[in-house]
Each structure stands twice: as structure tokens, then as C-alpha cells.
């Protein structure tokens, strides 16, 4: 009996398993492509993708070990790390999935009003929208409190003096329901990831007036969060997963592959929406200059300074406790060292620094990287402010009261 174990079965049992959670969003593309094209399998991984209906499910399933990894909005990864919205679970971000891709999409009437006000009074889009919001009480949708969307929308509105809660009501609406909520007038607009702005436009429910890049050019968006315990137990599996993802990120970033990627994502088990709506926001699509970026300009590199930007914006809006040492937290969760260890042996360039000043460039610039420098795109914020990670100091009294007591 003991010598009867078939070789095939033995090999199969040894393949490390990885369960990855994701949502119905265009920037799930690299993970779906890596799975469907067998890139994970090439690295000896047995991957299971699970499409979830909510960020809350992603967070809980990571927290309770149902998932080993997930495509996540970084602020939510920090919330899970600290146990701010439910059970805590140590997470790592060794890989960034995408940049850009969010849209601020308004009902057609509010978009029209914004446009007219802007033209009449010579205002920028955000100033014109701010004037509309001051004139009438308005409700806008975001996808989760701990989302990039919430932070980007608040940042943008604040540049025109609008404060969420005071001048505009923000409610959480799942992106798939946001299109209907917009059509029925329950919300006057939303900030959500691709393809939902395009879906709203196609349904005649909304008009996109701004995108991620109007707020922060080349804004980091989704990241891969991995349970720290899983990563520690199988470092080789993690390395393999990152290499598979890098292949997929390149594929999805190539404009020539856009139609193919859109068709793949549109399948019922993934996004289940019109492939043309997905295609629009992919590199090579009709709104590509405002859409998702998957590889170019070191998009996949997990810059600690970007993690820290999210954290400092979370603090700005009272979403994170004053006593948390943000810089330490960014360092613990964002793991560029793991990224480098995975891609360097492939000869792939990776930045040599972990931190950079965010928003300091109006034009493409070269960043120090090994084996050769990488050209990064412009990264200006809409208000021209430069985010210097060194300016973030530790809290005066280091009590971690954001953590659950046990």
C-alpha cells in the first residue's frame, strides 16, 4: 500500500496552493491572465481564483485564512493589518498590480451643469463641481471607506475647498450597483474603478468628468496583498507567483493584447460585462490614456512612499488612529525587497530605492534601478503638492491603540 502512491498524485500534492480573491474590476486582469494562460502553473503553483462581490468579503476571507492573497485597494490592506474593520491579519504587499483606472462619473444632468458652470465662470472641472455641490445637497458614491477611491475623491474635492461630510454626502455603493443607483437618481455620481464608469456611460446613466490621473498622474491603484504567514511558509511559491504575475502584467500592458484581455475578462465567471466596456479602459483601448496601467514605468514595484501616501491621507481624514507609526507600518506591509528577490534573477530591472518623493515630476524621468535605470512617467498631483516621505514623523506617543486587545 505504501509504495502504491502514484507519482502523478505525489507531484500534485506537493504543488503549493494559492487561493486569490478578486473583484469584478478591470485591474484584476494580470491575475486572471496569469491563471488562464497557465503562468502560475508554469511556476508550479496550483492557483484558485475566487471572485467576490464585496471588499468586505475580501478582507474577511484574508483575515480568516480563506484566501492566501487578494487583489486589494492598499488602504484596506492596512485596515486588515491593523484590525481596524474586523479581525486583524498580518499582510504583505510585495507587488503592485495597477495604476490609474478610476473614474469620477456623474449623472448626465450634474455633469452637464458642471460643464456649463465651468465654461460660464471660467472654472476648472473640480472648481465647477465644487460650485454645484455648494448650490445643492448632493450624494456621491464611493466603493469602500478604506478605498483608494475615497482618498482620491476627497483629495480632489479638497483642492476646491469641498469637505466630504460637510459639503457633500459620501455613501458606499458597490460599483456594480452604482450604475443603477445613478440611473435612478439615488446618487448623483460615483468614484469607482474601471469598467464601471464606461458601463454607466454605455447605459446612458452617466458621464465621466475626471479620472485618477486628473487627481494624481500615474496614481498607484490595486496591489497584491499576501498573508504574511503564507509567504513565510512558502517563500518559493511567493517568488513563483510574482514571476507569473510579471509575465501577465506585461501581457496586459501591451496594447496589441487589449482585445484579447477584454474578451477574457468579460467571461461570465469574471467581470460578466460587455467586453467593449472593458476594452475602453485597457492599455490600447479607446480611453487608454486615462485607463489602467499594468507594467510600464515600474508600475508593479511596491513603492513604500506610495503606501505611506495612502496612510497619511487615511490619517488626514481620521480613518487611522493618531498613535500609529505610519512610516513603520508602510515599511512592514510594503515589501520591495521581496519584489526584487523575485524579479532580479530574471534580469528584470527593479528600482534600487524603496522611497521616492511622490508628485515631483511634470515629465517622464529616470529612476535609479538595477541593472539599468527605468523611465517613470510624470506623477504630479492636481494641486502640485509634493509628498515627501521623510516629512512624515513618528507619533509623539507610540501607543498602538488601533490594534485589538488580546
Amino acid at each position: 500500500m505504501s509504495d502504491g502512491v502514484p507519482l502523478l498524485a505525489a507531484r500534485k500534492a506537493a504543488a503549493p496552493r494559492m487561493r486569490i480573491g478578486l473583484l469584478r474590476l478591470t485591474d484584476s486582469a494580470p491575475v486572471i491572465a496569469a491563471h488562464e494562460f497557465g503562468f502560475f502553473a508554469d511556476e508550479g503553483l496550483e492557483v484558485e481564483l475566487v471572485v467576490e462581490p464585496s471588499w468586505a468579503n475580501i478582507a474577511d476571507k484574508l483575515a480568516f485564512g480563506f484566501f492566501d492573497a487578494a487583489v486589494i485597494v492598499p488602504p484596506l490592506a492596512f485596515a486588515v493589518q491593523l484590525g481596524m474593520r474586523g479581525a486583524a491579519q498580518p499582510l504583505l504587499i510585495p507587488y503592485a498590480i495597477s495604476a490609474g483606472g478610476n473614474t469620477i462619473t456623474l449623472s448626465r444632468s450634474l455633469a452637464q451643469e458642471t460643464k456649463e458652470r465651468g465654461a460660464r465662470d471660467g472654472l476648472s472641472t473640480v472648481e465647477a463641481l465644487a460650485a454645484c455641490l455648494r448650490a445643492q445637497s448632493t450624494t456621491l458614491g464611493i466603493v469602500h471607506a478604506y478605498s483608494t477611491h475615497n482618498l482620491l475623491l476627497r483629495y480632489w474635492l479638497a483642492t476646491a475647498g469641498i469637505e466630504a461630510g460637510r459639503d457633500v454626502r459620501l455613501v458606499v455603493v458597490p460599483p456594480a450597483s452604482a450604475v443603477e443607483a445613478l440611473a435612478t437618481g439615488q446618487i448623483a455620481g460615483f468614484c469607482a474603478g474601471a469598467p464601471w464608469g464606461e458601463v454607466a456611460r454605455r447605459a446612458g446613466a452617466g458621464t465621466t468628468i475626471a479620472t485618477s490621473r486628473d487627481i494624481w498622474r500615474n496614481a498607484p491603484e490595486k496591489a497584491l496583498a499576501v498573508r504574511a504567514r503564507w509567504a513565510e511558509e512558502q517563500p518559493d511559491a511567493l517568488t513563483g507567483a510574482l514571476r507569473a504575475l510579471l509575465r501577465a502584467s506585461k501581457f496586459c500592458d501591451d496594447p496589441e493584447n487589449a482585445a484579447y484581455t477584454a474578451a477574457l475578462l468579460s467571461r461570465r465567471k469574471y467581470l460578466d460585462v460587455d467586453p467593449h466596456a472593458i476594452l475602453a479602459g485597457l492599455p490600447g483601448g479607446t480611453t487608454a490614456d486615462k485607463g489602467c496601467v499594468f507594467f510600464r514605468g515600474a508600475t508593479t514595484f511596491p513603492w513604500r512612499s506610495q503606501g505611506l501616501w495612502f496612510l497619511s491621507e487615511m490619517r488626514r481624514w481620521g480613518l487611522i488612529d493618531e498613535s500609529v507609526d505610519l512610516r513603520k507600518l508602510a515599511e512592514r506591509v510594503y515589501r520591495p525587497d521581496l519584489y526584487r528577490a523575485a524579479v532580479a534573477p530574471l534580469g528584470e530591472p527593479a528600482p534600487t530605492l524603496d522611497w521616492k518623493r511622490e508628485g515631483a515630476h511634470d515629465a517622464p524621468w529616470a529612476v535609479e534601478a538595477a541593472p539599468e535605470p527605468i523611465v517613470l512617467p510624470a506623477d504630479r498631483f492636481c494641486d502640485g503638492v509634493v509628498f515627501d516621505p521623510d516629512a512624515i514623523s513618528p507619533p509623539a506617543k507610540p501607543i498602538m491603540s488601533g490594534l485589538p486587545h488580546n
Partner: protein
Amino acid sequence: MPLKILLIDTDADRARALGEKLSESGFAEILRAPAGPDLAETVERTRPDLVIIDMALPDRDALEDIRAVSAAHPIVMFAGSDDPAFAEEAIAAGVCSYNLSGVALQDVKPIMASAIALFRRYRRVEDELAAAKAMLEERRLIERAKAILMQGRKMTEPEAYRWLQKKAMDENRKLAQVVAEFVERHDADSAASRTERKRP
């Protein structure tokens, strides 16, 4: 004082069954709400102690942002308790709870145990239904495949069945897969030859 419990469920039958079960005890006042953009408002208006929600609903995210009701964030799935296994059971069953008024865990547990049991039972019924459907479809395909073989290759019915079984064994695959592929390929081939025949 009875606990006020808000149920949000896609399945009206299941919500009714759970509502009845929980009301029977007399310790709970049951409210029900539809999912949708007004959910947060409903919660703030009705001020339940506990929200029980179907994890298949995307609307969970809205509940995470409710601070007006409880001073702090609502407590998701007994976070901070020392019984992760209980939360795991709930997640596996597909049901989640938000504790809004700091109800003691020992009071929440029996309520969630009822919800978990009910969600499991409904899931089992769904799984069984899906399995029965799959089995019927497999039978139908086997009958089709046998008919194709009996007609095209002049086999008897037992011969045709043995042929399919052997094919599955040789290819180390499930009979259902082999049969489905066989029928599909046959249909594609005959469709192609029909088009060819039409050509002059």
C-alpha cells in the same frame, strides 16, 4: 430586553425562515430590509443591535462605514473574540454579522448559530439541485453518445457504452468529460460537413 436584529438576504424564503426561528425564542425583534443604496440609512434609522447579512450581497461594504449608530465601527464577525473557528464557520456558510451596539458575544452566538445552520441547509439544497441537474445532463449526453456510436459505427448499445468507458480510462479522464467532448465534436463535425455539402 429583546435584541433588534436586521436581516438582509437575497433569498426571501431563507430570510423568512430565519426570522421565524429567531422570533420564536422571544428574545429578538426581527426587521428585514432590502439591499441597495439606502441600506446605511435604514440601519441608522432602525438602529438594530445586530445586522445579519448574506455574504453574496455586495452591500456589505456599505455597512462597514456606519459610525453614527455605534460610537466606533460596527464589529464585523466577532472580531477580537477568541473564537476564530466560529467566524470561520459563518464565512464558510456565507453569512456575516455586524454587532452595532456591543451585544455580548454569548448573546450573539446562539443567534448566529441559527443563521449558520439555516444558510448551510439552504446551500446544501442548492448544491444537491445543481448535482442532480449535472447528473441528468450527463445521462442525456451518454445516451446521445451511445446513439451516435450505434448509428455511425454499427455498435450495439453495450458495446457503445464499453467503448466510451474504455476511452475515458485510456485518457485517464472522467466519463462525463469524455462524453461531453465526444458529443460536442460530433456535432461540430456534422455541422461542418453539412456546410461543405451545401457547396456546389
